[in-house]
């Protein structure tokens, strides 16, 4: 019995004491908290510049105040999304102002007949089938409800791309905890966000195959 106690005391003398262990625990804890909350988002997202700093406000004013002047529905009901170069050229074959962004657009894209590689903030993965017609025409929703008041902006927001998925940060939302409304004033666009709104508005979250065909 006494031999055992001696052994224990002897080995205890060789060990680090409790508070040292706690300090290490704290170091690990605090370091991970900091890296998880501060470093991780910076690592996960890369910041990209839009090819042209587009002024929505000017265009809305010139084009009659409606989003669908440029972001229109095709005859068959499908949504055209961002305008193609061909559509831009219908006004911008020559410069309409001395704005440096317009000059850049004409030099680099119009003159070279190259499509502008816009970075789409609300781009969903290809496994998602989303119908603008069902929401805008069918449910009479406003563009701003999901996309925020982009129409009155004078310059494009920063675009952040998720390095793993390749998709825009807007889908998840800026807040890592998904708290609060998005900065752009629209909605977050993860699957659960769709489901939540559908539950509220239609009484059902919907079925898998409605969006995942």
């Amino acid at each position, binding site marked *: 019995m006494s031999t055992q106690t001696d052994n224990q005391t002897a080995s205890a003398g*060789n*060990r*680090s*004491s409790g508070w*040292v*262990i*706690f300090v*290490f*625990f*704290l*170091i*690990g*804890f*605090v*370091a*991970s*908290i900091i*890296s*998880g*909350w501060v470093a*991780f*988002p910076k690592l*996960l997202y890369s910041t990209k510049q839009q090819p042209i700093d587009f002024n929505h406000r000017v265009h809305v004013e010139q084009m009659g105040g409606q989003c669908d002047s440029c972001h229109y529905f*095709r005859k*068959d009901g*499908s949504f*055209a*999304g961002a305008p193609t170069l061909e559509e831009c050229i219908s006004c911008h074959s020559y410069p309409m102002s001395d704005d440096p962004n317009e000059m850049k657009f004409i030099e680099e894209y119009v003159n070279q007949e190259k499509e502008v590689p816009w970075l789409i903030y609300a781009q969903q*993965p*290809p*496994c998602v089938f989303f119908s603008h017609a069902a929401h805008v025409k069918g449910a009479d929703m406003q563009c701003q409800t999901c996309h925020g008041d982009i129409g009155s902006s004078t310059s494009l927001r920063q675009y952040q791309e*998720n390095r*793993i*998925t*390749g*998709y825009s940060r807007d889908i*998840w939302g800026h807040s*890592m*905890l998904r708290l609060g409304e998005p900065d752009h004033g629209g909605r977050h666009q993860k699957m659960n966000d769709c489901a939540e709104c559908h539950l509220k508005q239609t009484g059902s979250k919907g079925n898998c195959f409605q969006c995942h065909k």
Partner: protein
Amino acid sequence: MKIDRRCFLSLVVGGAVGTTLTPVPWKLTDDIAIWTQNWPWTPVPEDGPNKYVKSVCTQCPGGCGIVARTIKNRAIKIEGQPDHPVNNGSLCPKAISATQHLYGPSRIQEPMKRAGERGQGKWEKISWDEAIATVSEKLAELRTKGKPHEVACISDTDKGSVAYLLDRFLRAYGSPNFIRTPTSLDAQELSLYLSCGQQGSIGYDLKNADFILSFGCALMDGCDAAGQIMSAYAGFDQKVQLVQIEPRLSDTAGRASKWIAAKPGTEGILALGLGHVIVRENLYNKDFVNNFSAGFEDWQDESGTAHPGYRSMVKDYSPDKVAELTGLSSQAIESLARSFVRARRPIAVSGYNSTGSGSLDQALAIFALNALAGNIRKPGGITFVGEPDYLSWTEMKIDKTASAGNQQPRVDNAGSGSYPHARYLLNQLPRVIKDAKADAPVQALLVAGANPLYTMTDNKAAAEAFDRIPFIVSFSAFMDETAKHADLLLPHPHFLECYQDVPTPAGLPETVIGLSRPVVKTSYDVRHTGDVVIQIAKSFGGFIENAFPWKDYEDFLQKSLSEKWKTLEKKGYWTEATPQDTTWSEAFRTPSGKFEFLPRAKFAGTGSAKGQALVFDNLSLPGDAKELPLILIPYTSARIAHGPVANTPFMTKTVDAGVIRKNDVFVEINPRTAEEYGLSQGDRATLKTPAGQARVRVNLFEGVMPGLVAMPAGLGRTGFSEYIAGKGVNVYSLIPGVEDPGSGLNTAWGARASLAKA
């Protein structure tokens, strides 16, 4: 202060606890999940405005109207064309998944010539100019030697512009050897020609019939008229009776009002048995039979020789005798005969890739039932659909060499003394080549649209025969089994990339011409076979060039279709506006001017009274019944393409695990047969027939007759791509040919077989 292992562990634990309180694990899990669903190498359809192009699928002769949705130059989705007179919006899996072949690795992308041994798969890319020059030189050489008739062409169809151009080229060049691949159509066309004197195909007005007696037709089992059948079936009401005679519970049998499992190969005998009951009970249509038919009663020819009529002949086929031969009960035969003939608009149907024997006599026996019912040229009955006459042709002049070549007998014996009425007998070609002592009688072979080394029965014998042909040219769009054994590949575009006319599909009761047109621009260096034929002809100069006064295929098609072209361009199809003539007085162009139950033309020259009877006795299958006690029958399915072009991989995915699992094919046998041979579900077995043997697995199925082994057709491909080849066994390779003595056609409906546990 001591820093040891425990401190390190504590740091890790602290880090782990802290991490759970950050977004790292939850956000990473979500992102990885999204990443795995969107592999960057997975092709994603382009985004852009949709365009819808109306066209026609030409992967089989069915002529179904399609609407192809495209984005930019990419075909995205194919659907049935609503309101199309053939398919009315319905479509088979082969057409729906056609884009997979369009973009798949089976395509031949540019002209190539063989670099290694035949079939070795070594190819050298060449230019189109060189490819066309190679063909022209070879053909010119044969022509200079005075042997233009040693050139043959095998095509999957003899209708439509490409077949006409090929045939016209052969005629101008000096060869009579344009050969269509065998189908159930052969016996259909021949029976129509002999009994009614009409060249063309039989139209079945299924939409208006109320009693459809189908002799083994693969109506809903992947026949070459799937859209037509689905469209008719969708319109059937409760009163329409569909009776399916077939030894296996097929999809058609499953959907029929009544399924009658007669022994395979006895369909013709059953038709005569039904005729016996109808004649005995005086139930036939007297107006038609007495006034518009010949050969019903016994008759004498000019020389005074007596010939038995249909009435005398069916006397021998009493219900008791037929019951014994077919395995049915005599009551079932009698009641079937009565319900058939008493229906308001009954129709007896054969063809449609029937599982039954393709013998001429069987087709005649079934046709006779329609005559007894008096439903020829009546709504819900049989119509005559003439040969396509929409291509207006300019006369052509030919030189002496061509004329001498054209007068040579056909290499496949069609139209010869023994088979005066057969138009094409590809099944005889392997034997003719094998029996030739010196050089093979075919020195150059052109293969267009067909894939004979896969689709011919006993294709091993066919392959051996092809080995003796020194020059084989394939026009296939795909690296199919025949293209693999060719010397020169002149790839045709995929049907979604080119213009082509589509003649009235077999079985359809009215004339409908379709126009297949480019849905997308091709991304390969391929050329339309029509263009290539015109270019080859032009390279000859002289008479041959003059026979082809068109700039290219499109020019030819537009000029030939003349005023129909506009309608076809706009609507995608053209239908005959004139109503069908339903009178009988002018309907028949036979020697007697009437419908002939036992066609005199068939027996002309044979001189014997015995020749008047329809022959069924000689159609037994080759092989020793003791050694090979079972019978192998092929079956077709809408989910497995059994024609020249293989399944798309998407189609293979729809096939049940009881049909194919990994690379093993399952044969269906009745549990009683399984017990007799000591086999259980899923067992591996060796299947032997006189044509060869194969490793299979067994699937116990009560829907197949005892004593039969049913195997799906369309598997066991060796060509195309790694995603298609090597799955199962080609059932045609196990079936030896059986020649119909009456017509020379291949009537093999199965093969004697044995099955032993492996």
